[in-house]
């Protein structure tokens, strides 16, 4: 016990980030092996939260709220990322299952906040939720992370063909598109993905350029809510994208 008493005062300083030098190093070594001091540190951090309360002041200006919400609105969109795949590709195995999970993971990630609110009173559910979310993100990573390897498996002795796979979850307005073996394009040109609705004109669903290995990904492009897809198609357009197809359809697929 005397050993812990020896560290008690240093812990309080440490909780405030006010401990420096050799004292700090010594305490950090001790903390690594001492659960009771770690617990005391957590309590002291709770105590410092009380100190924060003595701050009182004006509310933040309205512009700060607007600025934050605008920044958040910009955040979740991950636009086409030509991937740095290597020649030995993998990752297309179990596609359907993982992509479906991915679509849910992205939505869940946003919904997690709403949950957090109510979870102050149901904290164990929150912890479980966070764990599940982490699991889902792990599953999603091999699909959308640019450094993930991608491998397309085809019948032996078949030359590689351009391929695209679209995973679309209408009720969540979520679309994940993965392409492989796409031919290189002239400068200033890009592929454009189209959602072909059951009625009406094709809807732009993202512009992408394949990487050196012909791979590309489009994740959650802006789409009108609830659009019912009859098929997806690809054309070549200017790299800025076009509101309507201007060249013949290169690739097309209807729902499976």
């Amino acid at each position, binding site marked *: 016990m005397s050993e812990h008493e020896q560290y008690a005062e240093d812990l309080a300083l440490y909780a*405030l980030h006010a401990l*420096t030098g050799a004292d700090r190093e010594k305490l950090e070594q001790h903390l690594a092996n001492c659960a009771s001091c770690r617990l005391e540190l*957590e309590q002291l951090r709770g105590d410092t939260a009380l100190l924060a*309360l003595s701050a009182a002041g004006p509310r933040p200006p309205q512009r700060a*709220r607007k600025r*934050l919400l605008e*920044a958040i609105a910009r955040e979740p969109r991950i636009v086409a990322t030509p991937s740095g795949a290597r020649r030995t590709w993998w990752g297309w195995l179990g596609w359907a299952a993982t992509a479906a999970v991915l679509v849910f993971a992205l939505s869940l990630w946003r919904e997690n906040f709403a949950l957090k609110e109510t979870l102050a009173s149901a904290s164990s559910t929150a912890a479980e939720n966070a764990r599940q*979310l982490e699991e889902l993100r792990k599953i999603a990573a091999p699909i959308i992370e640019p450094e993930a390897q991608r491998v397309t498996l085809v019948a032996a002795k078949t030359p590689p063909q351009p391929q695209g796979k679209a995973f679309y979850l209408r009720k969540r307005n979520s679309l994940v598109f993965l392409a492989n073996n796409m031919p290189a394009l002239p400068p200033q040109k890009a592929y454009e993905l189209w959602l072909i609705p059951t009625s009406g004109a094709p809807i732009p669903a993202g512009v992408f350029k394949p990487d050196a290995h012909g791979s590309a990904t489009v994740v959650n492009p802006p789409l009108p809510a609830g659009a019912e897809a009859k098929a997806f198609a690809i054309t070549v357009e200017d790299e800025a994208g076009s509101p309507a197809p201007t060249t013949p359809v290169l690739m097309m697929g209807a729902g499976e």
Partner: protein
Amino acid sequence: MAELYDRYSSVVYAVALRVLGDTGAAEDVLQEVFLQLWRNPSAFDAARGNLGSWLAVVTRNRAIDSLRKRRPETDIENVVLSVAPDLAGEAERARAAEKVRGVMGAMVPAQRSALEMAYWEGMSHSEIANKTGEPLGTIKTRIRAGLIALRKAFQTG
């Protein structure tokens, strides 16, 4: 997120402004803290504290890092706190703030100022010792006793 912001932004802003004394810099910290929470909601573990207190601690640490022009030292993931009152409502917060001010007011001035220098100015124990001319050991004792006094005030209700 808008709801979370409406509930907790006044705490976050007040803490940042108290540390930085500059509305623009305080707004930057406010933005940064909420954006980080948005990017990584799992950093906050509801099983181990409430969001208001957690945000207060994260904000204070970020603001101090900014004040002292040092690289952010604390990842928000590293902040775990086990005891703190629930500060979700304005009324609870106001009552708790009143109590904190009462405890601080009852401290001897040297203790209060040591605690405030460490907390609001981010000074290290040796900097405080240099400034006040008191021994390091005295500063350490004062700061710990100050924090424990706050804890006790809340434990006894």
